[in-house]
């Protein structure tokens, strides 16, 4: 039998650079064990220094390759980089194949880079809570940048990217007639637009389409004081990354110095609070109301009560526990 190391001991080890301890803490975040809550409270206190960058875009748009090249450039500047790569779980089995590391092989073995793959349904409760706790582990242990890669389809994934300080939306040429990300509805959340694969001849069209759209005012981020920029990159040729890093740094500066940026930080905090509350609620709810669930849904299916009556009965027996 394996031995259980208490989470506060893991925090001590993680803070002196033990990557196995960091990794185990991330698993505890996914498992959502109450035991780790004080440890994560401590990590949260220590965190707050890293620049958290969300990278999203439709499948195959070149996100992982971009993260890899961006990380190499940041490493060359002496920065430590943590990466959380979120991949979708199979709706059928709940399992997943997480392959982002394949495109990040240039980073393999570098101790200044920490890569963690997470599956959307790998966490008990919400992925948003768990992935942001994993970000805290990296932030608190001194990583300068924490990059979260999520696929820009599905509300849960997009929400996670939006909980970052700076949201990068990746659009690629050649994925369709027009920019696929429009259909996915994610262009609006970008603080920085990357057009990837600009070594391809059809990239110019994607760039100009995107610029046209921006002049039409397609942006939710930052209000008037932040103008999202379009940054063409080629991970294959290593081009555009100086510009990308400049755009990221400028956005971080804007967050720190503008009142809109401060509002954004408060929104992120509110999001985390709500997601964590949601998780607590649903975990305790399912733990205590599971027997009633079967009984009441039976009554509902026999049409002896209405959906509202059923919901009221289900909720009536529930009492949220206070902190232990």
């Amino acid at each position, binding site marked *: *039998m*394996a*031995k*259980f*190391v208490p989470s506060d001991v893991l925090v001590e080890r993680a803070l002196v650079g*033990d*990557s*196995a301890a*960091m*990794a*185990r803490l*991330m*698993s505890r975040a*996914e*498992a*959502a*064990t109450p035991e780790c809550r004080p440890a994560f409270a401590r990590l949260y206190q220590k965190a707050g220094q890293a620049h958290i960058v969300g990278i999203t875009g439709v499948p195959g748009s070149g996100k992982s390759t971009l993260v890899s090249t961006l990380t190499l450039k940041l490493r060359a500047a002496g920065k430590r980089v943590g990466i959380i790569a979120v991949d979708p*779980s*199979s709706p*059928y*089995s*709940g*399992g*997943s*194949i*997480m*392959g982002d*590391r*394949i495109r990040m*092989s240039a980073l*393999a*073995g570098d*101790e200044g880079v*920490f*890569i*963690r*793959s997470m*599956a959307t349904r*790998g*966490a*008990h409760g919400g992925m948003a809570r768990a992935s942001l706790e994993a970000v805290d582990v990296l932030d608190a242990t001194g990583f300068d940048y924490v990059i979260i890669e999520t696929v820009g389809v599905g509300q849960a994934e997009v929400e996670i990217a939006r909980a970052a300080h700076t949201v990068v939306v990746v659009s690629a040429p050649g994925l369709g007639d027009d920019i696929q990300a429009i259909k996915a509805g994610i262009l609006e959340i970008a603080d920085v637009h990357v057009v990837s694969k600009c070594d391809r001849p059809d990239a110019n069209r994607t760039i100009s389409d995107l610029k046209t759209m921006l002049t039409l005012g397609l942006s939710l981020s930052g209000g008037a004081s932040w103008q999202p920029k379009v940054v063409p990159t080629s991970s294959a040729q290593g081009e555009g990354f100086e510009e990308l890093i400049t755009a990221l740094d400028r956005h971080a500066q804007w967050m720190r110095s503008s009142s809109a940026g401060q509002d954004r930080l408060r929104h992120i905090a509110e999001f985390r609070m709500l997601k964590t509350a949601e998780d607590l609620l649903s975990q305790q709810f399912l733990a205590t109301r599971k027997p009633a669930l079967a009984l009441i849904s039976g009554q509902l299916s026999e049409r002896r009560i209405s959906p509202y009556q059923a919901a009221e009965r289900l909720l009536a027996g529930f009492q949220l526990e206070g902190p232990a």
Partner: protein
Amino acid sequence: MTNKIRILLAKVGLDGHDRGVKIVARCLRDAGMDVVYTGLHRSPEEVVAAAVQEDVDVLGVSLLSGAHMTIFPKIIAGLKARGVDDIILLGGGVMPDEDVVALKKMGVHEVLLQDTPPNTIIQTIERLVAERGDR
């Protein structure tokens, strides 16, 4: 609460075939496991670093190149050097029976040769993880 079984699949060495590993990855996903796949040509050190960061329950290393007797000792030493003693190590691929015996003595928990049926792979993983227990 315990998480789903997490497993990292790696191809070490020079051979360029990963069709088999990809099929295994799909079977494990369909059995409800979370599978991290790292791609071809990884070094033992890279595999160890990835397995530690991913905090997997199981590290599955597949090789067809015949270098297993040099690669597995490096992986075992790498895990030990990082103080990791609760990752289950599986070998896969093609190798002679006497090497299987030697590898198990060395600390490889199980060796699943090339034609092992998917169900056996799944059952073996589930059994080994259950035997190890929560951590």
